[in-house]
């Protein structure tokens, strides 16, 4: 995940390069470091550097990293010829390289020849059974082919070995949600919260899953996690504010007969509603009417 300062720096560089100022190389380096996915821009500016032989030789040994970056961007934009050329150049320079083998596998994937790509990846894995990137490419391939259960299986096997990889946990959680397997998704989000407890996004996603699972205990827990999201984001997260209102009304509905009063935070609901109204007044005042009627229907 990219921090705010890095994001502003990236945007600034992007604007600069777009408007004709120099700095294409710094932009490409920053994109590579932050692992952001801006394939069109990378393709355009990378090719402009590579095709100009003077600029290319000015790069020195970084030239090959640029070839790899442009090849991947080209595959993302479906310009397979460009990708093939870049890979050919790389292969001439590094004939026995694993990285080039991986790029070849990705090219086969981009072309859509799944079986050959699978063969290429498995042969690469034989030589190097602990290569994380290849494992992840296989999962991505299974997902792209629509074989979601296969993707889940591969991802679980990957996580058995590399259980500290939080990106993989996130991917697994999203796959489970798409299949409506909410309990498993909750487990994955718990892992994410454990590894990065101060990232509000995980709290929010976990709260959403708990709210969907429903049931009194889950709803109360969901309300607590919405509250923690609000705390971590300083009250600015609209989804969390809505979440609080919905949770409170859902809890009230579920515990209608019982006398379970929520002693912990009696004002949270009204505070959240007020904060929402204020936010809407500032940013989308035409929808304020909708908001107030929705909140009123929740209160009853």
């Amino acid at each position, binding site marked *: 995940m990219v921090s705010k300062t890095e994001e502003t720096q990236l945007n600034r560089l992007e604007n600069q390069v777009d408007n004709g100022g120099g700095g294409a190389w710094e932009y490409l380096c920053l994109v590579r470091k932050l692992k952001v996915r801006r394939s069109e821009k990378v393709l355009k500016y990378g090719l402009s550097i590579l095709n100009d032989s003077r600029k290319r030789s000015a790069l020195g040994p970084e030239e090959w990293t640029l070839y790899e970056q442009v090849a991947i961007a080209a595959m993302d934009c479906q310009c397979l010829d460009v990708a093939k050329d870049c890979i050919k150049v790389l292969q001439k320079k590094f004939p026995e390289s694993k990285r080039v083998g991986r790029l070849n596998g990705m090219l086969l994937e981009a072309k859509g020849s799944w079986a050959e790509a699978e063969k290429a990846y498995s042969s690469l894995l034989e030589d*190097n*059974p*602990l290569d994380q990137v290849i494992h992840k490419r296989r999962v991505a391939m299974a997902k792209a082919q629509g074989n979601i259960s296969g993707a889940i299986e591969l991802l679980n096997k990957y996580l*058995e*070995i*590399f*259980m*500290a*990889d939080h990106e993989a946990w996130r991917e697994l959680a999203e796959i489970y949600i798409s299949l409506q397997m909410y309990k498993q998704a909750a*487990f994955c989000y*718990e*892992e994410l*919260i*454990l*590894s990065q*407890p101060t990232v509000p996004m995980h709290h929010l996603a976990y709260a959403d899953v708990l709210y969907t699972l429903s049931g009194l205990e889950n709803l109360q*827990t969901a*309300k*607590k*996690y*919405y*509250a*923690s999201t*609000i*705390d971590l984001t*300083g*009250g600015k997260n609209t989804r969390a504010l809505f979440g*609080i209102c919905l949770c409170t009304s859902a809890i009230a509905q579920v515990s209608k007969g019982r006398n379970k009063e929520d002693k*912990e*935070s009696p*004002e*949270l609901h009204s*505070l*959240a509603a*007020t*904060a929402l109204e*204020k936010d809407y007044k500032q940013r989308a005042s035409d929808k304020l009417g909708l908001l107030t009627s929705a909140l009123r229907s929740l209160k009853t």
Partner: protein
Amino acid sequence: MAEDLVLDTAIRDWVLIPLSVVMVLIGILRYFVSKLMRSFQVPDHKIVKEGQVIVRARNLRAAANFIPPKSFRSRRVYFSNEENGLLFVPKGQAQNAQAQMFSDPNMAMDMMKKNLSMIIPQTLTFAWVNFFFSGFVAAKIPFPLTQRFRSMLQNGIDLSTVDVSYVSSRSWYFLNLFGLRGLFSLILGEENATDDTQRMMQMSGFGFDPSKSLSAEKDGLDIVQHEWALPKFEHRAEAVLKKLVS
């Protein structure tokens, strides 16, 4: 023993500084040589898994208060369960790791290479220092020392009345050996093979590392008391919203 020996400044110019410069250069040379000689070691699949398990267990311990008590407890059982818990290492296996470490030819070769690349330059430099720079007082240590250090630090000086603070160049060599580590990490970046002292410390307990850290994690996990922090958050959220709304 309060007389102050006046040391020739020529000593500083021709002994202390050249010795430091030579050691820095040898360190840099060793770094590049080790980079060339480094054989790519295929990480063992079990070792990687153990490393990751430890990271996960550590995360669990650190952030235990952020997840609901039920999930924390189920995870704790998963990790420290007697039969098939991840962190539980039966006694017999622990010894095996070390024996395996020494019998595996690749690993032994690697350790030999690393040891050699460390021992040979050290020995050579030490012999060189002894040959050229012995028999005179090289420096004065600013703090007083006991008599025990005399034999170690005053090696070439055969006068027993000289204060122990006046040392020979051998001690300057040792000082440099341990002190230049910081300098190397500045010059050569984080990954440098000149961490001799660390390597020496690691040499003793090699194969034991995984199983020991696993049981250490398990003990740590057993101790943790789960105190769910989330209810507090509700109050904090209230406070935040109050400030926002007012």
